[in-house]
């Protein structure tokens, strides 16, 4: 696999996005309404799967220690995996995107991708929560099922908020960032 090195401009942009994303992530907000997956997906779409995955992973690592909800503990590795998947999906989506796509369709598609990212992230992190139950002595399968079932209301909020955030923000963000780094046209 060939990894393209970032030029100075892209590197600076990557740093700025990481700082901005962390600042928003560490700001107190309603549970499961977040912008990190959006930023990670966007970084993946602009810089590629590898940088997108790295971006999500590092953001969740820092968040695990500094989150306003406290130290993430055992769930932190699962949060990192979940966000890595979000970044990777950004890169994959960019690759699978047709050369010409109209704005409305792009917004609808990214809204759906936002929902699926929220779902995958929640499933992965709920598995992490399930491990707490397993440590507590619950049967593995039952522990996972309970963790997923009891996280469903948070998941619904997350899916709903991500659908809106991705649907509204992805198009202008990618357009602006593309102009900054100089890449193919979207929309």
């Amino acid at each position: 696999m060939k990894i393209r090195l970032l030029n100075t401009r892209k590197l600076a942009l990557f740093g700025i996005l990481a700082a901005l994303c962390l600042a928003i992530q560490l700001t107190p907000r309603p549970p499961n309404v977040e912008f990190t997956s959006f930023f990670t997906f966007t970084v993946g779409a602009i810089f590629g799967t590898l940088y997108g995955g790295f971006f999500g992973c590092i953001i969740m690592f820092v968040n695990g220690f500094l989150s306003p909800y406290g130290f993430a503990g055992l769930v932190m590795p699962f949060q990192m995996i979940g966000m890595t998947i979000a970044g990777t999906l950004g890169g994959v989506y960019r690759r699978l995107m047709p050369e010409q796509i109209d704005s409305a369709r792009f917004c609808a598609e990214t809204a759906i991708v936002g929902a699926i990212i929220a779902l995958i992230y929640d499933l992965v992190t709920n598995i992490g929560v399930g491990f707490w139950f397993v440590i507590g002595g619950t049967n593995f399968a039952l522990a996972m099922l309970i963790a997923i079932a009891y996280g469903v209301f948070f998941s619904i909020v997350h899916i709903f908020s991500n659908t809106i955030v991705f649907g509204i923000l992805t198009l202008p963000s990618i357009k602006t960032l593309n102009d900054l780094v100089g890449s193919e046209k979207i929309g």
Partner: protein
Amino acid sequence: MVEKRALVFVTLVILVWAISISSLAAYFYFQNMMYTKQIGENQQSLNKTASNYDELMSKYNILLGEYSMLYGIYSFPSGNFTSLIESLGRLLDSLKGNYSSLLMNQEDLNETYYTLKEDYELVYKETNVTGEDFGRLLNEYYDLFNLLVVRELSLVLSETVTLNVNACIDYGNGTTNWRNETKMPAGSSLFQLTQKIAEINYTYYPSMKPGHVLVDSINEKKTCTVGYSEGWSWIWYYWDDNEQNWISGPVGCDAWMLKDDGTYKWKFEHWSWP
């Protein structure tokens, strides 16, 4: 024709929907399971309480029947009380046999029982038992019997009900200790609460009622008297929610039953007489 890309996104939407709904269904399934389990446990607890109640009432009816028979003979004019005293002895033994665990666990009741038993022994030794002595013993027996029934009923209730009470100890020198949200089984008396929250010494007065206990010291702070006309004693109060005021305890602390969310206070205070 629907293009392939559109189909993929429609599939993704359906996937999100299906997983969310399945999780929701699982959530309600687990909730239902939990509630069913809780209802089952509550039902079991209620059944146990009902069964204990039945047992208690059967015992009560038998003892009350025996008492009633003896009381009938006692009430009948020109009765021979010397020949009846042995029946009273059997009644006392029967009482002890039926309420042995309660008498063993509740100090004040145990003391009342043994005081009555001692009185009985004294009267029993007399060659000629008077109607007055016999009547007094029979009354004391009946009081104790009723108290035992009330306490045992409360104990049955305490298997499903726990009381939360607040207690305060005012040492009269500006120091006040509060013990809020103290958990006590239903049917507990203020005496039992005080024993739980503090180190106490007390004296049992058989002739005093209702309630036979006077507290001599709480947490090593002792009562004292100067002659017979004044002194310092531990007085108890309860908080009256309607009057929004502390009311002085009208009975001995061992006769006062706690109520849920009740607030009680022991105060070390000066008294003088007249």
